[in-house]
């Protein structure tokens, strides 16, 4: 990068907030995705929309790539600065600007950590439902741009269901505002939705108008253990067909069960083919009635055992197994790929069986857990990036997992996004015409291709 550009950046953000030492650059060369690393040429930490606007205008006229970054916890290499350039970190823009109780809306800057928004609205008896595993660190800007989901996705949906409007700086530095506080708003293209899940490829979000909802008054959690995977699958179908939408409906496969049991000792039978964790929430009387029905469905479908939590302590105990899933798997080996293939929920048992066969076929360790209720599975491959031969088998296994998901009418990602990680299967899912349509949107909004180039829709 030219010294004059660096000087200009320094002028915009102030010397303290431009980082250029090799060590600082190195610290922004990665995100939570294994296997991707590349050095940026500069890191900026702007404090305002105006600063971001100036940075983008400068980058655009010099055709310098810009990688917007929240906390860098994404799992698809979306913040890895693959072409060098500028990493633009939003974490200094971390103010909650307004909590509008009357309209049930929160307005916040993109660098606000999701858990902090939740803490702030909890005082008013409200929640902001999107709850990725990283709520304590991930930013609103990052979660909106990845369209993040979480455990409550089945009932409450994912991030896009809560984004009502935003302020965005476009590639050339122009600032736009789209959407707003109106619950009904059909004026024009839905630009808010377009920027949601755009993975930093179309603009930099500088302000968010978000919907919040009343916190449920009551919750009830239970855990069911199944000797047979199909019984678990039928239970999921049974619960939904009884018109019950649990807030959470999670599944762990046998390989995850054994790993969790091995490391966390939560008391799961090792021969169980699946464990379902279910939580219903809402009005206390409804919650009781729904829990009864869920219990009956589980029994009907030959659940080997069902535990219902009587108090918060027991809830915590039940959830310990789910919480331990990823950590327990990741502790097995140095490298962890937490994948995110999603299938229609009726196909969950078929998908789980396929993944388990793929693991055997390529001799790789895969544990699968995930959101059974919405079909969002996390096949988690643990391996050692440093062993080349093993990685070749992992690549093949991964390819077959995604191909299988697509064959079952599934999708590459339920919540983690595409980035670079899943780019190679995009055309398979969407076909060449849709891919070209997406690329033309990218070209229209970012003609110099400076924003997160090469990600999501690939090279344009």
């Amino acid at each position, binding site marked *: 990068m030219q010294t004059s550009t660096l000087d200009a950046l320094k002028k915009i953000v102030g010397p303290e907030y431009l980082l250029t030492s090799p060590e600082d650059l190195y610290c922004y060369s990665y*995100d939570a995705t294994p296997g991707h690393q590349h050095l940026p040429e500069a890191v900026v930490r702007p404090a305002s929309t105006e600063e971001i606007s100036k940075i983008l205008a400068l980058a655009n006229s010099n055709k310098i790539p810009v990688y917007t970054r929240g906390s860098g916890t994404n799992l698809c290499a979306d913040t890895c600065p693959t072409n060098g350039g500028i990493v633009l970190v939003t974490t200094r823009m971390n103010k909650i600007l307004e909590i509008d109780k009357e309209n049930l809306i929160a307005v916040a800057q993109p660098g606000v950590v999701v858990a902090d928004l939740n803490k702030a609205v909890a005082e008013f008896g409200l929640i902001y439902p999107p709850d990725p595993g990283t709520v304590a660190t991930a930013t609103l800007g990052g979660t909106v741009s990845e369209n993040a989901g979480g455990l409550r996705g089945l009932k409450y949906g994912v991030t896009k269901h809560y984004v009502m409007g935003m302020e965005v700086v476009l590639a050339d530095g122009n600032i736009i505002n789209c959407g707003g506080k109106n619950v009904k708003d059909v004026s024009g293209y839905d630009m808010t939705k377009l920027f949601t899940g755009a993975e930093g490829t179309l603009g930099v979000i500088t302000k968010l108008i978000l919907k919040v909802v009343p916190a449920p008054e009551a919750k009830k959690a239970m855990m069911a253990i199944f000797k047979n995977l199909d019984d678990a699958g039928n239970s999921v179908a049974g619960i939904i067909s009884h018109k019950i939408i649990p807030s959470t409906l999670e599944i762990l496969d046998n390989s995850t069960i054994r790993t969790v049991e091995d490391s966390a000792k939560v008391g799961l039978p090792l021969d169980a083919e699946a464990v379902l964790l279910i939580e219903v929430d809402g009005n206390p009387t409804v919650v009781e009635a729904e829990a009864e029905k869920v219990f009956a469905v589980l029994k009907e479908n030959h659940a080997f055992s069902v535990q219902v939590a009587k108090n918060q302590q027991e809830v915590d105990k039940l959830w310990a197994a789910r919480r331990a899933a990823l950590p327990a798997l*990741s502790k097995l080996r140095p490298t962890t790929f937490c994948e995110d293939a999603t299938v229609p929920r009726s196909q969950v048992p078929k998908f789980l069986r396929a993944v388990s066969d793929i693991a055997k076929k390529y001799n790789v360790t895969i544990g699968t857990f995930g959101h059974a209720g919405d079909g969002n599975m996390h096949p988690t491959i643990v391996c050692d990036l440093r062993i080349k031969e093993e990685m070749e088998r992992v690549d093949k296994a991964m390819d077959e997992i995604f191909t299988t998901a697509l064959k079952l009418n599934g999708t590459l990602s339920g919540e983690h996004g595409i980035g670079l990680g899943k780019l190679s299967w995009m055309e398979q899912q969407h076909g060449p015409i849709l891919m070209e349509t997406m690329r033309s949107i990218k070209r229209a909004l970012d003609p110099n291709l400076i924003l997160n180039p090469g990600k999501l829709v690939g090279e344009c």
Partner: protein
Amino acid sequence: MSNEITAKDINEHDKELLRDIEDALANCVKCGNCMAVCPIFKEVGVESGVARGKLALMEGVLKGDIPISDNFEKALGKCLSCKACAANCSSGVPADELIIRGRQAIVKARGLHPMKQKVFTLLKNRPLFDFALRMAGLFGPLGMKKLPRPMAVVARFPMPGMDKRRVLTPFAATPLRNQYPETIKVDKPKMRVAFFTGCTINYAYTDIGQSVINVLKANDVEVVMPSMQHCCGTPVFTSGDIETGKTFARHNIQTFERYDVDYIVAACGSCAEAFKFEYPKMFKDEPDMKARAEKLAKKTLEISEFLVDVVKFRKDNLGEVKATVTMHDPCHMVRGIKVTQQPREIVNAIPGIKFVEMKEPARCCGSGGSFSLANYELSRKINDRKVADIASTHADIVATSCGSCRMHITDGLVQNHQDNTQVVHVIQLLDKAYQAGKK
């Protein structure tokens, strides 16, 4: 670039050290969980400030991508060893320890920082160290201005490496171990313990040491204070100077072995942790020393832990102490030796005390041993959060279990004009209650 040593150079220098770190580093999945809890990251907001970034930098050095440079040293220096990252890491990465290992690599590659080198050389020589700190106690008052609160002074003259506003503890005119005979007898001893005083209590906070002795006596425990004991070595080995750290450890092991005692007690989480965990780890390659360290480790307890779990301290003769008390859990108590219930049990047993828990009792106060020397402004910011948390409890007294925390929080209270709040060691409250019971 002449002062930059590349990974290749140190690779040749010390392959073993690097290979060790490499495997442990690979376990960091870069999930960023540590960002939520790292007090340094909260203030500085950049990746090099959080465990994930520091581990990445170490990986970078290992891969040969970046040299062991000044900036690398600065980044690894920005860590309080508070262990919050490790406690919150679902992958079980002991980032705090790895950062210390990284500092070891720095020391190996570039030598110790000249100022630390001077201080550690002094530290290594026990008699000289003792002499210097006693002189400081005798002549210190000339350079220090007393503040209207117990055990608090500020420097009259600027001192190198020390912010001149900073509130310190005066060095004692007579160190603790010189105030007592080596063995402090009781009438009908139930048991006999060796008291590891640590430097802070011996040379500065002698009031804590006196309380420890009073309380042990009140519970019919005979106390010996081995006169040859030396600094536990924590400040030294956390700086990466493992060899000097080992010298201290070896000296202390040899010293304490000579005494026939039932237990060794320390009144500081870090000192207790050094005996319990660090010494055995340090000698992992010396089976004989390791066995000896482990033998002592088994006998070592922090004072509250000892009083509650072993002695079952006397509660029948406790007098009233009228105060609202809150508690700060030192990092090495809560995440190091995992002792938090026992000090609370002690405080709650004292009649008259109203105990109010602060919001985040286990959050680091920002002292971090020598960290606050090198990064005073930053450590102040971290401490300001602690002080605000304390203020919201409206407590008159903050009880804690570490001299450094006591000093740093006292400084924070003075800087924030919170003049009615005192900081004491938990055991001082118990001592006070026993005194009150006698009346």
